[in-house]
Protein backbone atom coordinates (compact mmCIF):
# COMPACT_ATOMS: atom_id res chain seq x y z
CA UNK A 1 0.00 0.00 0.00
CA UNK A 2 2.59 2.47 1.09
CA UNK A 3 4.72 1.40 -1.83
CA UNK A 4 2.02 2.11 -4.38
CA UNK A 5 1.24 5.37 -2.66
CA UNK A 6 4.86 6.32 -2.86
CA UNK A 7 5.04 5.23 -6.45
CA UNK A 8 2.06 7.37 -7.41
CA UNK A 9 3.56 10.23 -5.46
CA UNK A 10 6.89 10.07 -7.26
CA UNK A 11 5.14 9.61 -10.56
CA UNK A 12 2.98 12.61 -9.73
CA UNK A 13 5.97 14.63 -8.69
CA UNK A 14 7.93 13.96 -11.84
CA UNK A 15 5.51 13.66 -14.74
CA UNK A 16 8.21 14.41 -17.23
CA UNK A 17 10.32 11.37 -16.33
CA UNK A 18 7.34 9.00 -16.69
CA UNK A 19 6.46 10.51 -20.02
CA UNK A 20 10.08 10.22 -21.03
CA UNK A 21 10.12 6.59 -20.05
CA UNK A 22 6.93 5.95 -21.95
CA UNK A 23 8.32 7.70 -24.99
CA UNK A 24 11.53 5.74 -24.72
CA UNK A 25 9.69 2.42 -24.48
CA UNK A 26 7.53 3.23 -27.48
CA UNK A 27 10.69 4.15 -29.35
CA UNK A 28 12.10 0.79 -28.24
CA UNK A 29 8.99 -0.93 -29.56
CA UNK A 30 9.31 0.87 -32.86
CA UNK A 31 12.95 -0.16 -33.16
CA UNK A 32 11.97 -3.73 -32.28
CA UNK A 33 9.42 -3.96 -35.05
CA UNK A 34 11.76 -2.24 -37.47
CA UNK A 35 14.48 -4.82 -36.86
CA UNK A 36 11.97 -7.65 -36.90
CA UNK A 37 10.52 -6.52 -40.26
CA UNK A 38 12.23 -9.17 -42.44
CA UNK A 39 11.07 -12.01 -40.22
CA UNK A 40 7.60 -10.53 -39.70
CA UNK A 41 7.08 -10.09 -43.44
CA UNK A 42 8.38 -13.58 -44.11
CA UNK A 43 6.17 -15.05 -41.41
CA UNK A 44 3.03 -13.32 -42.68
CA UNK A 45 3.64 -13.72 -46.41
CA UNK A 46 5.40 -17.08 -46.57
CA UNK A 47 4.12 -18.99 -43.54
CA UNK A 48 0.95 -17.74 -41.85
CA UNK A 49 -0.80 -16.54 -45.01
CA UNK A 50 -0.04 -19.68 -47.03
CA UNK A 51 -1.05 -21.88 -44.08
CA UNK A 52 -4.45 -20.20 -43.89
CA UNK A 53 -4.83 -20.46 -47.66
CA UNK A 54 -3.93 -24.14 -47.76
CA UNK A 55 -6.34 -24.82 -44.89
CA UNK A 56 -9.07 -23.31 -47.07
CA UNK A 57 -7.86 -25.23 -50.14
CA UNK A 58 -8.01 -28.49 -48.18
CA UNK A 59 -11.80 -28.16 -48.26
CA UNK A 60 -11.97 -27.41 -51.97
CA UNK A 61 -11.43 -28.94 -55.36
CA UNK A 62 -8.84 -26.85 -57.20
CA UNK A 63 -6.77 -27.63 -60.29
CA UNK A 64 -5.10 -24.20 -60.84
CA UNK A 65 -7.25 -23.45 -63.90
CA UNK A 66 -10.84 -23.30 -62.70
CA UNK A 67 -11.50 -21.39 -59.46
CA UNK A 68 -11.52 -23.46 -56.23
CA UNK A 69 -14.82 -25.21 -55.59
CA UNK A 70 -15.85 -25.79 -51.97
CA UNK A 71 -16.39 -29.49 -51.32
CA UNK A 72 -16.43 -29.71 -47.52
CA UNK A 73 -14.79 -32.79 -46.07
CA UNK A 74 -14.75 -34.60 -49.39
CA UNK A 75 -10.94 -34.49 -49.74
CA UNK A 76 -10.42 -36.04 -46.32
CA UNK A 77 -13.05 -38.69 -46.99
CA UNK A 78 -11.31 -39.56 -50.25
CA UNK A 79 -7.89 -39.59 -48.59
CA UNK A 80 -8.70 -42.39 -46.24
CA UNK A 81 -10.16 -44.58 -48.95
CA UNK A 82 -7.28 -43.90 -51.34
CA UNK A 83 -5.08 -47.02 -51.41
CA UNK A 84 -2.07 -44.98 -52.56
CA UNK A 85 -2.48 -42.65 -49.60
CA UNK A 86 -2.67 -45.53 -47.15
CA UNK A 87 0.38 -47.06 -48.83
CA UNK A 88 2.21 -43.73 -48.41
CA UNK A 89 1.44 -43.80 -44.68
CA UNK A 90 2.58 -47.40 -44.39
CA UNK A 91 5.90 -46.80 -46.12
CA UNK A 92 6.55 -43.54 -44.27
CA UNK A 93 5.53 -45.08 -40.96
CA UNK A 94 7.98 -47.96 -41.28
CA UNK A 95 10.71 -45.57 -42.38
CA UNK A 96 10.17 -43.23 -39.41
CA UNK A 97 9.58 -45.90 -36.77
CA UNK A 98 12.56 -48.05 -37.75
CA UNK A 99 14.96 -45.54 -39.27
CA UNK A 100 14.91 -42.93 -36.52
CA UNK A 101 15.56 -45.24 -33.52
CA UNK A 102 18.26 -47.17 -35.38
CA UNK A 103 19.94 -43.94 -36.42
CA UNK A 104 19.81 -42.54 -32.89
CA UNK A 105 21.13 -45.74 -31.31
CA UNK A 106 23.98 -45.87 -33.82
CA UNK A 107 24.83 -42.23 -33.21
CA UNK A 108 24.76 -42.67 -29.43
CA UNK A 109 26.98 -45.77 -29.58
CA UNK A 110 29.57 -44.08 -31.78
CA UNK A 111 29.44 -40.92 -29.64
CA UNK A 112 30.19 -43.04 -26.56
CA UNK A 113 33.02 -44.74 -28.41
CA UNK A 114 34.52 -41.34 -29.24
CA UNK A 115 34.03 -39.88 -25.76
CA UNK A 116 37.54 -40.55 -24.41
CA UNK A 117 40.92 -38.89 -24.16
CA UNK A 118 42.60 -40.70 -27.03
CA UNK A 119 44.11 -38.97 -30.02
CA UNK A 120 42.65 -38.25 -33.50
CA UNK A 121 39.11 -37.78 -32.21
CA UNK A 122 38.69 -34.63 -34.27
CA UNK A 123 39.45 -36.58 -37.43
CA UNK A 124 36.97 -39.35 -36.57
CA UNK A 125 34.29 -36.85 -35.66
CA UNK A 126 34.65 -35.05 -38.98
CA UNK A 127 34.78 -38.28 -40.98
CA UNK A 128 31.55 -39.49 -39.37
CA UNK A 129 29.92 -36.13 -39.91
CA UNK A 130 30.57 -36.01 -43.66
CA UNK A 131 27.61 -38.25 -44.68
CA UNK A 132 25.20 -35.93 -42.84
CA UNK A 133 26.33 -33.10 -45.06
CA UNK A 134 25.92 -34.88 -48.39
CA UNK A 135 23.50 -37.73 -47.64
CA UNK A 136 20.31 -35.98 -48.74
CA UNK A 137 21.78 -34.86 -52.07
CA UNK A 138 20.87 -36.19 -55.50
CA UNK A 139 24.49 -37.24 -56.01
CA UNK A 140 24.43 -39.65 -53.09
CA UNK A 141 21.04 -41.02 -54.12
CA UNK A 142 22.60 -41.89 -57.50
CA UNK A 143 25.55 -43.58 -55.79
CA UNK A 144 23.24 -45.48 -53.45
CA UNK A 145 21.22 -46.71 -56.40
CA UNK A 146 24.34 -47.84 -58.26
CA UNK A 147 25.56 -49.69 -55.18
CA UNK A 148 22.30 -51.50 -54.41
CA UNK A 149 21.29 -52.39 -57.96
CA UNK A 150 21.37 -55.95 -59.40
CA UNK A 151 24.97 -57.17 -59.48
CA UNK A 152 26.04 -53.99 -57.72
CA UNK A 153 28.62 -53.76 -55.01
CA UNK A 154 26.15 -54.75 -52.28
CA UNK A 155 24.78 -57.65 -54.32
CA UNK A 156 28.32 -58.92 -54.99
CA UNK A 157 29.16 -58.70 -51.32
CA UNK A 158 26.06 -60.60 -50.25
CA UNK A 159 26.80 -63.28 -52.84
CA UNK A 160 30.32 -63.52 -51.49
CA UNK A 161 29.01 -63.92 -47.96
CA UNK A 162 26.58 -66.61 -49.10
CA UNK A 163 23.37 -64.58 -48.87
CA UNK A 164 20.59 -64.69 -51.43
CA UNK A 165 21.60 -62.80 -54.57
CA UNK A 166 19.69 -59.85 -55.96
CA UNK A 167 19.67 -56.08 -56.02
CA UNK A 168 17.68 -54.01 -53.57
CA UNK A 169 16.53 -51.31 -55.98
CA UNK A 170 14.13 -53.56 -57.88
CA UNK A 171 12.88 -55.54 -54.88
CA UNK A 172 9.80 -53.90 -53.26
CA UNK A 173 10.60 -55.63 -49.98
CA UNK A 174 14.05 -54.10 -49.77
CA UNK A 175 13.70 -50.53 -51.01
CA UNK A 176 12.65 -49.16 -47.63
CA UNK A 177 15.48 -51.00 -45.81
CA UNK A 178 17.85 -49.55 -48.42
CA UNK A 179 16.61 -46.03 -47.69
CA UNK A 180 16.74 -46.71 -43.94
CA UNK A 181 20.39 -47.64 -44.41
CA UNK A 182 20.85 -44.33 -46.22
CA UNK A 183 19.44 -42.35 -43.30
CA UNK A 184 21.35 -44.40 -40.72
CA UNK A 185 24.49 -43.70 -42.76
CA UNK A 186 23.90 -40.03 -41.89
CA UNK A 187 24.20 -40.64 -38.14
CA UNK A 188 26.97 -38.05 -37.86
CA UNK A 189 24.90 -34.97 -37.03
CA UNK A 190 23.05 -36.46 -34.02
CA UNK A 191 26.34 -38.10 -33.01
CA UNK A 192 28.10 -34.73 -32.84
CA UNK A 193 25.25 -33.42 -30.66
CA UNK A 194 25.40 -36.51 -28.41
CA UNK A 195 29.17 -36.15 -28.11
CA UNK A 196 28.83 -32.53 -27.00
CA UNK A 197 26.26 -33.67 -24.43
CA UNK A 198 28.48 -36.49 -23.16
CA UNK A 199 31.32 -34.05 -22.58
CA UNK A 200 29.09 -32.05 -20.24
CA UNK A 201 28.58 -34.96 -17.85
CA UNK A 202 30.89 -34.46 -14.82
CA UNK A 203 33.38 -37.32 -14.54
CA UNK A 204 32.96 -37.25 -10.73
CA UNK A 205 29.58 -38.93 -11.19
CA UNK A 206 31.21 -41.93 -12.84
CA UNK A 207 34.02 -42.01 -10.27
CA UNK A 208 31.54 -41.97 -7.41
CA UNK A 209 29.53 -44.74 -9.09
CA UNK A 210 32.69 -46.82 -9.51
CA UNK A 211 33.49 -46.43 -5.83
CA UNK A 212 29.99 -47.68 -5.08
CA UNK A 213 30.71 -50.71 -7.25
CA UNK A 214 28.47 -49.87 -10.21
CA UNK A 215 29.22 -51.73 -13.43
CA UNK A 216 29.35 -50.29 -16.93
CA UNK A 217 25.71 -51.03 -17.71
CA UNK A 218 24.46 -49.51 -14.45
CA UNK A 219 26.54 -46.41 -15.07
CA UNK A 220 25.05 -46.11 -18.53
CA UNK A 221 21.48 -46.56 -17.32
CA UNK A 222 21.75 -44.44 -14.17
CA UNK A 223 24.15 -41.68 -15.21
CA UNK A 224 24.67 -41.43 -18.96
CA UNK A 225 21.06 -41.79 -20.08
CA UNK A 226 19.47 -39.41 -17.55
CA UNK A 227 22.21 -36.81 -17.97
CA UNK A 228 21.91 -37.09 -21.73
CA UNK A 229 18.11 -37.03 -21.85
CA UNK A 230 17.75 -33.35 -22.89
CA UNK A 231 20.04 -33.98 -25.86
CA UNK A 232 18.24 -37.23 -26.60
CA UNK A 233 14.94 -35.36 -26.55
CA UNK A 234 16.28 -32.77 -28.98
CA UNK A 235 17.67 -35.39 -31.36
CA UNK A 236 14.55 -37.53 -31.20
CA UNK A 237 12.27 -34.58 -31.98
CA UNK A 238 14.33 -33.23 -34.87
CA UNK A 239 15.18 -36.59 -36.43
CA UNK A 240 11.57 -37.78 -36.28
CA UNK A 241 10.21 -34.63 -37.92
CA UNK A 242 12.99 -34.79 -40.44
CA UNK A 243 12.30 -38.43 -41.30
CA UNK A 244 8.70 -37.66 -42.26
CA UNK A 245 10.00 -35.39 -45.00
CA UNK A 246 12.17 -37.82 -46.98
CA UNK A 247 11.86 -36.97 -50.67
CA UNK A 248 14.90 -36.52 -52.92
CA UNK A 249 16.50 -39.93 -52.36
CA UNK A 250 13.22 -41.81 -52.93
CA UNK A 251 12.50 -39.68 -55.99
CA UNK A 252 15.88 -40.34 -57.58
CA UNK A 253 16.11 -44.02 -56.69
CA UNK A 254 12.65 -44.75 -58.11
CA UNK A 255 13.14 -42.50 -61.15
CA UNK A 256 10.29 -40.27 -60.01
CA UNK A 257 7.76 -43.12 -59.93
CA UNK A 258 7.56 -44.22 -56.30
CA UNK A 259 8.13 -47.79 -57.42
CA UNK A 260 8.77 -50.65 -57.59
CA UNK A 261 5.22 -51.62 -56.58
CA UNK A 262 4.71 -48.25 -54.80
CA UNK A 263 7.33 -49.30 -52.24
CA UNK A 264 9.03 -45.86 -52.23
CA UNK A 265 5.81 -43.84 -52.37
CA UNK A 266 6.64 -41.76 -49.30
CA UNK A 267 4.21 -39.21 -47.92
CA UNK A 268 5.80 -36.08 -49.35
CA UNK A 269 6.45 -37.90 -52.61
CA UNK A 270 2.76 -38.73 -53.02
CA UNK A 271 1.91 -35.16 -52.04
CA UNK A 272 4.21 -33.94 -54.80
CA UNK A 273 2.62 -36.26 -57.36
CA UNK A 274 -0.93 -35.18 -56.44
CA UNK A 275 -0.11 -31.49 -56.18
CA UNK A 276 2.45 -30.87 -58.87
CA UNK A 277 1.91 -33.61 -61.43
CA UNK A 278 -1.89 -34.02 -61.21
CA UNK A 279 -2.42 -30.41 -60.02
CA UNK A 280 -4.99 -31.49 -57.45
CA UNK A 281 -4.16 -28.60 -55.16
CA UNK A 282 -7.10 -29.17 -52.80
CA UNK A 283 -6.32 -32.84 -52.33
CA UNK A 284 -2.60 -32.15 -51.82
CA UNK A 285 -3.42 -29.40 -49.29
CA UNK A 286 -5.56 -31.84 -47.33
CA UNK A 287 -2.59 -34.23 -47.34
CA UNK A 288 -0.28 -31.47 -46.12
CA UNK A 289 -2.62 -30.57 -43.27
CA UNK A 290 -2.92 -34.17 -42.11
CA UNK A 291 0.89 -34.28 -42.05
CA UNK A 292 1.02 -31.06 -40.02
CA UNK A 293 -1.51 -32.46 -37.54
CA UNK A 294 0.37 -35.74 -37.18
CA UNK A 295 3.77 -34.09 -36.79
CA UNK A 296 2.22 -31.55 -34.41
CA UNK A 297 0.65 -34.34 -32.33
CA UNK A 298 3.95 -36.20 -32.14
CA UNK A 299 5.79 -33.04 -31.08
CA UNK A 300 3.10 -32.32 -28.50
CA UNK A 301 3.31 -35.84 -27.05
CA UNK A 302 7.10 -35.58 -26.87
CA UNK A 303 6.93 -32.17 -25.18
CA UNK A 304 4.18 -33.27 -22.76
CA UNK A 305 5.92 -36.46 -21.70
CA UNK A 306 9.33 -34.88 -21.40
CA UNK A 307 8.96 -34.12 -17.69
CA UNK A 308 8.67 -37.90 -17.15
CA UNK A 309 11.90 -38.84 -18.81
CA UNK A 310 13.89 -35.72 -19.60
CA UNK A 311 16.08 -34.68 -16.74
CA UNK A 312 17.22 -31.07 -16.72
CA UNK A 313 20.02 -30.43 -14.26
CA UNK A 314 21.66 -27.17 -13.36
CA UNK A 315 20.33 -23.70 -12.73
CA UNK A 316 18.96 -22.67 -16.08
CA UNK A 317 16.18 -24.49 -17.85
Amino acid sequence: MTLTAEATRTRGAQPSSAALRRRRSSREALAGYAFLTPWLLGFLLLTAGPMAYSLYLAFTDYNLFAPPEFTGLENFRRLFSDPNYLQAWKVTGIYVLVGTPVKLIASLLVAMLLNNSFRAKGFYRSAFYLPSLVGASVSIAIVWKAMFIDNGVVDRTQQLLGFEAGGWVGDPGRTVPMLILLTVWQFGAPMVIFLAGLKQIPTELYEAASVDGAGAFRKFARITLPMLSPVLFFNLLLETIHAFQIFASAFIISNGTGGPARSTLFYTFYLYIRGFQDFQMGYASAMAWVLVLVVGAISLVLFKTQNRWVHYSGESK
Partner: protein
Amino acid sequence: MSTAIAPTGPRRPVADEHSAKLRRATRNRNRGKELLFHVVTLAIVAVILYPAIWMLASTFKPSNQIVGNVSLWPTDASFDNIRTALGGIGGVSFWTFFTNSLILAIGSVVGIVISCSVSAYAFARINFPGRNVFFSLMIGTLLLPFHVVIIPQYIVFNNLGLVNTFVPLLIGKFLAAEAFFVFLMVQFMRNLPRELDEAARIDGAGHVRIFTAIMLPLMKPALVTSSIFAFIWSWNDFFGPLLYLKNPDLYSLPIALRLFVDQTTTSDYGAQMAMAVLALLPVLLFFLIFQRYLVEGVATQGLKG
Protein backbone atom coordinates in the same frame (compact mmCIF):
# COMPACT_ATOMS: atom_id res chain seq x y z
CA MET B 1 51.27 -40.64 4.98
CA SER B 2 54.88 -40.19 3.97
CA THR B 3 55.93 -39.75 7.61
CA ALA B 4 54.23 -43.01 8.50
CA ILE B 5 56.15 -44.84 5.82
CA ALA B 6 59.48 -43.15 6.65
CA PRO B 7 60.52 -45.49 9.52
CA THR B 8 60.39 -48.54 7.30
CA GLY B 9 63.28 -47.15 5.32
CA PRO B 10 64.81 -50.29 3.88
CA ARG B 11 61.63 -51.45 2.25
CA ARG B 12 60.95 -48.25 0.34
CA PRO B 13 62.94 -48.99 -2.83
CA VAL B 14 61.05 -52.26 -3.19
CA ALA B 15 57.72 -50.47 -2.91
CA ASP B 16 58.89 -47.90 -5.44
CA GLU B 17 59.95 -50.54 -7.87
CA HIS B 18 56.65 -52.29 -7.41
CA SER B 19 54.57 -49.18 -8.02
CA ALA B 20 56.67 -48.29 -11.07
CA LYS B 21 55.94 -51.71 -12.49
CA LEU B 22 52.27 -51.21 -11.75
CA ARG B 23 52.29 -47.83 -13.43
CA ARG B 24 54.01 -49.27 -16.47
CA ALA B 25 51.45 -52.03 -16.59
CA THR B 26 48.54 -49.55 -16.52
CA ARG B 27 50.23 -47.45 -19.16
CA ASN B 28 50.60 -50.50 -21.36
CA ARG B 29 47.00 -51.45 -20.72
CA ASN B 30 45.94 -47.90 -21.69
CA ARG B 31 48.08 -48.07 -24.78
CA GLY B 32 46.49 -51.39 -25.64
CA LYS B 33 43.10 -49.88 -25.08
CA GLU B 34 43.95 -46.93 -27.29
CA LEU B 35 45.18 -49.23 -30.03
CA LEU B 36 41.95 -51.23 -29.84
CA PHE B 37 39.99 -47.97 -29.97
CA HIS B 38 41.80 -46.87 -33.13
CA VAL B 39 41.37 -50.24 -34.81
CA VAL B 40 37.63 -50.33 -34.07
CA THR B 41 37.04 -46.70 -35.00
CA LEU B 42 39.07 -46.88 -38.19
CA ALA B 43 37.09 -49.94 -39.22
CA ILE B 44 33.85 -47.99 -38.79
CA VAL B 45 35.31 -45.02 -40.65
CA ALA B 46 36.27 -47.32 -43.53
CA VAL B 47 32.70 -48.66 -43.78
CA ILE B 48 31.15 -45.19 -43.51
CA LEU B 49 33.41 -43.54 -46.06
CA TYR B 50 33.35 -46.47 -48.49
CA PRO B 51 30.41 -45.16 -50.58
CA ALA B 52 32.03 -41.72 -50.90
CA ILE B 53 35.40 -43.11 -51.95
CA TRP B 54 33.77 -45.66 -54.24
CA MET B 55 31.95 -42.79 -55.92
CA LEU B 56 35.19 -40.87 -56.41
CA ALA B 57 36.96 -43.94 -57.79
CA SER B 58 34.07 -44.74 -60.14
CA THR B 59 34.47 -41.35 -61.75
CA PHE B 60 37.72 -42.55 -63.27
CA LYS B 61 36.62 -46.09 -64.17
CA PRO B 62 35.27 -47.08 -67.59
CA SER B 63 31.46 -47.24 -67.53
CA ASN B 64 31.29 -51.01 -67.83
CA GLN B 65 33.58 -51.47 -64.82
CA ILE B 66 31.54 -49.61 -62.23
CA VAL B 67 28.52 -51.62 -61.19
CA GLY B 68 29.66 -54.55 -59.11
CA ASN B 69 33.24 -53.39 -59.00
CA VAL B 70 34.08 -53.36 -55.31
CA SER B 71 37.58 -52.01 -55.89
CA LEU B 72 38.43 -48.49 -54.81
CA TRP B 73 41.23 -48.20 -57.36
CA PRO B 74 40.42 -47.58 -61.05
CA THR B 75 42.57 -49.92 -63.15
CA ASP B 76 42.17 -48.14 -66.49
CA ALA B 77 41.94 -44.64 -65.08
CA SER B 78 40.73 -41.99 -67.50
CA PHE B 79 39.05 -38.61 -67.58
CA ASP B 80 36.51 -39.67 -70.22
CA ASN B 81 33.60 -39.66 -67.76
CA ILE B 82 34.41 -36.21 -66.54
CA ARG B 83 34.66 -34.98 -70.10
CA THR B 84 31.22 -36.46 -70.89
CA ALA B 85 29.75 -34.91 -67.76
CA LEU B 86 31.23 -31.50 -68.49
CA GLY B 87 29.68 -31.74 -71.95
CA GLY B 88 26.32 -31.05 -70.36
CA ILE B 89 22.86 -32.20 -71.38
CA GLY B 90 20.67 -31.32 -74.33
CA GLY B 91 22.86 -28.48 -75.50
CA VAL B 92 23.11 -26.84 -72.09
CA SER B 93 26.63 -26.75 -70.72
CA PHE B 94 27.56 -28.10 -67.30
CA TRP B 95 28.84 -24.63 -66.44
CA THR B 96 25.38 -23.13 -66.95
CA PHE B 97 24.01 -25.44 -64.26
CA PHE B 98 27.01 -24.72 -62.10
CA THR B 99 26.52 -20.95 -62.46
CA ASN B 100 22.81 -21.27 -61.63
CA SER B 101 23.61 -23.26 -58.50
CA LEU B 102 26.24 -20.72 -57.57
CA ILE B 103 23.86 -17.76 -58.00
CA LEU B 104 21.25 -19.50 -55.86
CA ALA B 105 23.75 -20.45 -53.17
CA ILE B 106 25.39 -17.03 -52.96
CA GLY B 107 21.99 -15.34 -53.03
CA SER B 108 20.89 -17.57 -50.14
CA VAL B 109 23.97 -16.74 -48.12
CA VAL B 110 23.58 -12.98 -48.63
CA GLY B 111 19.86 -13.07 -47.88
CA ILE B 112 20.19 -15.21 -44.80
CA VAL B 113 23.10 -13.29 -43.32
CA ILE B 114 21.30 -9.95 -43.70
CA SER B 115 17.72 -10.85 -42.84
CA CYS B 116 18.39 -13.36 -40.07
CA SER B 117 20.96 -11.27 -38.24
CA VAL B 118 18.70 -8.20 -38.26
CA SER B 119 15.71 -10.21 -37.04
CA ALA B 120 17.80 -12.02 -34.47
CA TYR B 121 18.93 -8.68 -33.05
CA ALA B 122 15.30 -7.73 -32.44
CA PHE B 123 14.67 -11.01 -30.62
CA ALA B 124 17.86 -10.94 -28.59
CA ARG B 125 18.35 -7.29 -27.70
CA ILE B 126 15.20 -5.16 -28.02
CA ASN B 127 12.23 -5.15 -25.65
CA PHE B 128 8.95 -4.76 -27.47
CA PRO B 129 5.42 -5.98 -26.91
CA GLY B 130 4.74 -9.38 -28.43
CA ARG B 131 8.37 -10.40 -28.59
CA ASN B 132 7.87 -13.66 -26.73
CA VAL B 133 4.84 -14.60 -28.81
CA PHE B 134 6.77 -13.98 -32.03
CA PHE B 135 9.71 -15.94 -30.68
CA SER B 136 7.48 -18.95 -29.94
CA LEU B 137 5.98 -18.69 -33.42
CA MET B 138 9.48 -18.64 -34.85
CA ILE B 139 10.39 -21.81 -32.94
CA GLY B 140 7.12 -23.33 -34.13
CA THR B 141 8.08 -22.78 -37.76
CA LEU B 142 11.28 -24.75 -37.06
CA LEU B 143 9.14 -27.83 -36.51
CA LEU B 144 6.57 -27.14 -39.23
CA PRO B 145 6.65 -29.43 -42.31
CA PHE B 146 7.12 -26.92 -45.12
CA HIS B 147 4.77 -28.87 -47.40
CA VAL B 148 1.84 -27.06 -45.86
CA VAL B 149 3.01 -23.74 -47.29
CA ILE B 150 4.46 -24.97 -50.57
CA ILE B 151 1.13 -25.37 -52.42
CA PRO B 152 -0.23 -21.85 -51.76
CA GLN B 153 3.22 -20.41 -52.39
CA TYR B 154 3.34 -22.16 -55.73
CA ILE B 155 -0.13 -20.90 -56.66
CA VAL B 156 0.79 -17.31 -55.80
CA PHE B 157 4.18 -17.38 -57.55
CA ASN B 158 2.50 -19.00 -60.55
CA ASN B 159 -0.11 -16.21 -60.69
CA LEU B 160 2.63 -13.61 -60.44
CA GLY B 161 4.47 -15.20 -63.34
CA LEU B 162 7.48 -15.99 -61.17
CA VAL B 163 7.70 -19.70 -61.94
CA ASN B 164 10.87 -20.25 -63.96
CA THR B 165 12.73 -17.50 -62.12
CA PHE B 166 14.97 -17.64 -59.05
CA VAL B 167 12.65 -15.35 -57.08
CA PRO B 168 10.55 -18.08 -55.36
CA LEU B 169 13.75 -19.85 -54.32
CA LEU B 170 15.44 -16.76 -52.89
CA ILE B 171 12.68 -14.59 -51.44
CA GLY B 172 12.38 -16.71 -48.30
CA LYS B 173 16.09 -16.27 -47.62
CA PHE B 174 15.74 -12.49 -47.69
CA LEU B 175 12.72 -12.64 -45.37
CA ALA B 176 14.33 -14.73 -42.64
CA ALA B 177 11.98 -17.62 -43.38
CA GLU B 178 14.74 -20.08 -42.44
CA ALA B 179 14.04 -20.06 -38.72
CA PHE B 180 17.02 -22.29 -37.99
CA PHE B 181 19.43 -19.46 -38.73
CA VAL B 182 17.44 -16.86 -36.79
CA PHE B 183 17.45 -19.22 -33.82
CA LEU B 184 21.18 -19.90 -34.13
CA MET B 185 21.98 -16.17 -34.20
CA VAL B 186 19.61 -15.32 -31.33
CA GLN B 187 21.32 -17.93 -29.19
CA PHE B 188 24.73 -16.58 -30.12
CA MET B 189 23.78 -12.97 -29.43
CA ARG B 190 22.26 -13.79 -26.05
CA ASN B 191 25.67 -15.01 -24.96
CA LEU B 192 27.39 -11.73 -25.81
CA PRO B 193 27.87 -9.46 -22.77
CA ARG B 194 25.08 -6.90 -22.35
CA GLU B 195 27.51 -4.38 -20.88
CA LEU B 196 28.73 -3.66 -24.40
CA ASP B 197 25.30 -2.43 -25.53
CA GLU B 198 24.76 -0.52 -22.32
CA ALA B 199 28.07 1.27 -22.58
CA ALA B 200 27.32 2.20 -26.18
CA ARG B 201 23.86 3.39 -25.15
CA ILE B 202 25.27 5.68 -22.53
CA ASP B 203 27.50 7.10 -25.24
CA GLY B 204 24.34 7.86 -27.16
CA ALA B 205 24.40 5.07 -29.74
CA GLY B 206 21.08 3.88 -31.15
CA HIS B 207 20.12 0.33 -32.11
CA VAL B 208 21.34 0.70 -35.68
CA ARG B 209 24.77 1.71 -34.45
CA ILE B 210 24.92 -0.95 -31.76
CA PHE B 211 23.92 -3.58 -34.29
CA THR B 212 26.34 -2.57 -37.04
CA ALA B 213 29.32 -1.44 -34.96
CA ILE B 214 29.20 -3.85 -32.00
CA MET B 215 27.03 -6.90 -32.68
CA LEU B 216 27.91 -7.71 -36.27
CA PRO B 217 31.69 -7.83 -35.74
CA LEU B 218 31.26 -9.98 -32.63
CA MET B 219 28.85 -12.31 -34.41
CA LYS B 220 31.38 -13.36 -37.01
CA PRO B 221 31.57 -17.02 -35.91
CA ALA B 222 27.77 -17.36 -36.03
CA LEU B 223 27.66 -15.62 -39.40
CA VAL B 224 30.37 -17.88 -40.83
CA THR B 225 28.61 -21.03 -39.58
CA SER B 226 25.28 -19.81 -40.99
CA SER B 227 26.84 -18.92 -44.33
CA ILE B 228 28.43 -22.34 -44.74
CA PHE B 229 25.22 -24.17 -43.91
CA ALA B 230 23.14 -21.81 -46.05
CA PHE B 231 25.46 -22.38 -49.00
CA ILE B 232 25.48 -26.17 -48.68
CA TRP B 233 21.73 -26.50 -48.12
CA SER B 234 20.98 -24.31 -51.10
CA TRP B 235 23.51 -26.21 -53.20
CA ASN B 236 21.93 -29.59 -52.35
CA ASP B 237 18.30 -28.42 -52.48
CA PHE B 238 16.20 -30.56 -54.79
CA PHE B 239 12.54 -29.92 -53.97
CA GLY B 240 12.50 -26.15 -54.53
CA PRO B 241 14.27 -26.14 -57.91
CA LEU B 242 12.18 -29.17 -58.98
CA LEU B 243 9.02 -27.12 -58.43
CA TYR B 244 10.07 -23.79 -59.81
CA LEU B 245 12.70 -24.31 -62.50
CA LYS B 246 11.21 -25.75 -65.70
CA ASN B 247 13.58 -24.34 -68.28
CA PRO B 248 16.86 -26.32 -68.60
CA ASP B 249 18.79 -23.05 -68.93
CA LEU B 250 17.78 -22.26 -65.36
CA TYR B 251 18.39 -25.72 -63.87
CA SER B 252 20.51 -25.96 -60.77
CA LEU B 253 22.91 -28.90 -60.55
CA PRO B 254 20.68 -31.37 -58.63
CA ILE B 255 17.87 -30.96 -61.16
CA ALA B 256 20.29 -31.17 -64.06
CA LEU B 257 21.74 -34.30 -62.49
CA ARG B 258 18.30 -35.87 -62.38
CA LEU B 259 17.72 -35.02 -66.05
CA PHE B 260 21.14 -36.44 -66.85
CA VAL B 261 20.31 -39.74 -65.12
CA ASP B 262 16.97 -39.85 -66.95
CA GLN B 263 18.49 -39.21 -70.35
CA THR B 264 21.76 -41.13 -70.40
CA THR B 265 21.42 -44.80 -71.14
CA THR B 266 21.46 -46.75 -67.90
CA SER B 267 24.78 -48.31 -68.81
CA ASP B 268 26.67 -45.00 -68.76
CA TYR B 269 27.27 -45.10 -65.03
CA GLY B 270 30.65 -43.49 -65.47
CA ALA B 271 29.25 -40.20 -66.68
CA GLN B 272 26.55 -40.26 -63.99
CA MET B 273 29.15 -40.79 -61.27
CA ALA B 274 31.36 -38.07 -62.72
CA MET B 275 28.51 -35.58 -62.76
CA ALA B 276 27.43 -36.62 -59.25
CA VAL B 277 30.97 -35.99 -58.03
CA LEU B 278 31.27 -32.67 -59.85
CA ALA B 279 27.95 -31.57 -58.32
CA LEU B 280 29.21 -32.42 -54.84
CA LEU B 281 32.70 -31.00 -55.26
CA PRO B 282 32.01 -27.54 -53.78
CA VAL B 283 30.34 -29.15 -50.75
CA LEU B 284 33.34 -31.41 -50.24
CA LEU B 285 35.68 -28.42 -50.53
CA PHE B 286 33.63 -26.50 -47.98
CA PHE B 287 33.75 -29.50 -45.72
CA LEU B 288 37.53 -29.83 -45.97
CA ILE B 289 38.10 -26.14 -45.30
CA PHE B 290 35.42 -25.44 -42.71
CA GLN B 291 34.90 -28.78 -40.96
CA ARG B 292 35.66 -27.23 -37.58
CA TYR B 293 32.95 -24.58 -38.04
CA LEU B 294 30.45 -27.13 -39.29
CA VAL B 295 30.95 -29.65 -36.52
CA GLU B 296 31.13 -27.01 -33.79
CA GLY B 297 28.04 -25.36 -35.25
CA VAL B 298 26.07 -28.58 -34.97
CA ALA B 299 27.38 -29.29 -31.48
CA THR B 300 26.52 -25.90 -29.95
CA GLN B 301 23.26 -25.45 -31.81
CA GLY B 302 22.18 -28.85 -30.62
CA LEU B 303 23.05 -28.29 -26.99
CA LYS B 304 21.22 -25.03 -26.78
CA GLY B 305 18.09 -26.35 -28.39
